[in-house]
């Protein structure tokens, strides 16, 4: 059962824009949600123990040109491969705040369109990491051969004209942590980008080679000369596990936002607070956020990170692959729940749809994001196949009280 709150437009304006006065405070309290309402508000800061717990060469500490700083640890785990832990963000001129306790891939499910084969590509992928050459890590440094830590231009952070022909603008920069894995004929590029605006972009690129599986025209696309060989279409359903610990594990709540109204002039905000383990599907204009109501920015708004997953192909598999039937899951933290399917730990659920089935109360939420990509081969995919990317965005919402630049 969810605690469902529908806010009026008036409350939306006051509560989420932080207008001054008593109404604004009431609104902020409303936006804080039910959980953690009794916590004394804390200013955004790092919780005890949220500093990276690792040392060189596993520690990454990067201050980007605008002054934003990201600190985290990396580990090449045998099963999940590249895993990032103890991720903290320090906005320009602000206090450090813990964001993620850990994040890693949780599955790459690859079903082919004829119905077979169907692969769960997460094997011991840590052992399949590709030793990177200097050219594979442009402008960055390689850690233990397998991990690239670099920065990358992201385009305009903003651009604004004052109307007098003078404009001001800034270029955005990402810290990028990246590794490549050879899983059969595919090469997977696994990366997380940490922006100077506080955003996180997990994504995975598939390159290497097509499988070479041939099929009928109904399930494939002609490759090579003529129309005799049909390469079989397939999905890459990629799952990420994200253990958010905003300022420590205490006080984190996951909310879903919808904006009702279609074919009408008005849109109305609807907020659903997940107080039990659950699953959710994508919807246009829908997004989620992990919010710590006990941590406020300078405008007294609760600090949160927003998750947007609208780029997914939204693959839905057969009944025995029920884990594919939602785009986001929220579970209560359990160390044994590591993969979205073929989970490797005895005494634990086998897949993420089972983790949420008992609807336990959420005290320390873990978010699982499922992003699908349907790959219909084309002539351009001739070897070596150009990279196709899939991922999602995690953006700060009220982490800083003003433009992070």
């Amino acid at each position, binding site marked *: 059962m969810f605690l469902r709150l529908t806010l009026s437009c008036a409350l939306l304006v006051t509560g989420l824009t932080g207008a001054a006065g008593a109404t604004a405070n009431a609104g902020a309290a409303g936006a804080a949600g039910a959980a953690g309402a009794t916590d004394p508000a804390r200013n955004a800061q790092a919780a005890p123990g949220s500093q990276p*717990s*690792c*040392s060189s*060469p*596993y520690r990454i500490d990067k201050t980007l040109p605008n002054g934003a700083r990201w600190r985290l*640890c990396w*580990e*090449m*785990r*045998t*099963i999940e491969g590249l895993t990032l*832990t*103890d991720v903290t963000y320090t906005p320009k001129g602000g206090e450090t705040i813990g964001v993620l306790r*850990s994040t890693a891939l949780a599955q790459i499910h690859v079903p082919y369109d004829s119905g*077979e*084969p*169907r*692969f*769960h*590509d*997460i*094997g*011991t*992928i840590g*052992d*399949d*990491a*590709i*030793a*990177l*050459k200097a050219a*594979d890590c442009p402008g960055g440094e390689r850690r*233990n051969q*397998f991990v690239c830590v670099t920065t990358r231009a992201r385009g305009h952070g903003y651009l604004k004209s004052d109307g007098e022909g003078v404009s001001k603008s800034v270029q955005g920069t990402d810290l990028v942590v990246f590794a*490549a894995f*050879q899983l*059969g*004929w595919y*090469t997977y590029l696994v990366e997380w980008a940490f922006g100077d605006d506080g955003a996180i972009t997990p994504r995975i690129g598939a390159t*290497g*080679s*097509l*499988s*070479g*599986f*041939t099929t009928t025209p109904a399930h494939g696309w002609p490759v090579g000369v003529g129309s005799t060989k049909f390469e079989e279409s397939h999905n890459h359903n990629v799952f990420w596990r994200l253990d958010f610990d905003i300022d420590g594990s205490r006080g984190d709540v996951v909310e879903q936002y919808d904006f009702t109204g279609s074919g009408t002039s008005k849109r109305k905000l609807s907020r659903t607070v997940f107080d039990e383990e659950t699953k959710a599907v994508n919807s246009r204009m829908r997004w989620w956020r992990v919010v710590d109501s006990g941590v406020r920015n300078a405008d007294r708004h609760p600090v949160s990170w927003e998750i947007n997953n609208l780029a997914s192909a939204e693959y839905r598999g057969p009944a*025995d692959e029920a884990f594919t039937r939602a785009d986001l899951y929220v579970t209560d*933290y359990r*160390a*044994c729940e590591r993969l979205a399917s*073929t*989970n*490797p*730990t*005895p*005494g*634990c659920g*086998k897949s993420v749809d089972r983790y949420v089935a008992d609807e336990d109360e959420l005290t320390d939420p873990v978010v699982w994001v499922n992003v699908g990509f349907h790959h219909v081969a084309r002539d351009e995919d001739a*070897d*070596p196949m150009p990279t196709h990317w899939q991922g999602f965005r995690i953006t700060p919402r009220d982490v800083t009280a003003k433009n992070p630049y």
Partner: protein
Amino acid sequence: MRRARIMMAFAVAGATAVVGVLSLVPGEQGSQAAQSVARPPSPGDPLTGDEITRAGQIASATWRSHMTTGRAELLYVERDDDKEAGDRRRADAYIYDYRTDRLVVRTVDLAKGEVVEERTGRGVHPPPSRGEETAAAELLLADPEYGERVRAAHLKAGGRPLVSAADLGLRALTFTPRPGDKVAGACETHRCVRLFVRLPDGSWLDTSRIVVDLSAKKILTLEW
């Protein structure tokens, strides 16, 4: 589409595959382990090679006789990252008992030097280890029909005869049968893997219908 086993064709995937330098050589775990250093590791550092070795020895102390006879195998050792364990250095050793088809995960507290937790279960299959990849390839090569086909493909791709499984690039994934699978239904509990085989020219054999049952030491050919 039903295909007779004899019809299986080793189609080559991406005949001109070009990929980066691979770490596909079967062998001891440890290429990803923290480099051995004079100072002790920080709590969030990966396990060192020494820690992996020590955790494996502690976890498998009562399993040695089973391991020497091949009835059980230490698959690998992972750092235990349970945040409720705080800063304690702990390691999870994955042991598979093929005789009873049980997975045993033993958590070793490295400071105490002892097993502090054990979980066991049937039908739970973590990813195949390097040793299991080699064992699966040896079973494939021992199969009269498939073995001959692999050798022929290797000779054609590399211009030299195949000596052992070590000549092949290997990758294995856990195989989970679909409901009602008539050929591989035993893989619900048996330890079954799909094997990907890479030839010296960088191409991959189409082994998508082949499943290796490591518990029964059998090759299965899927029907679809």
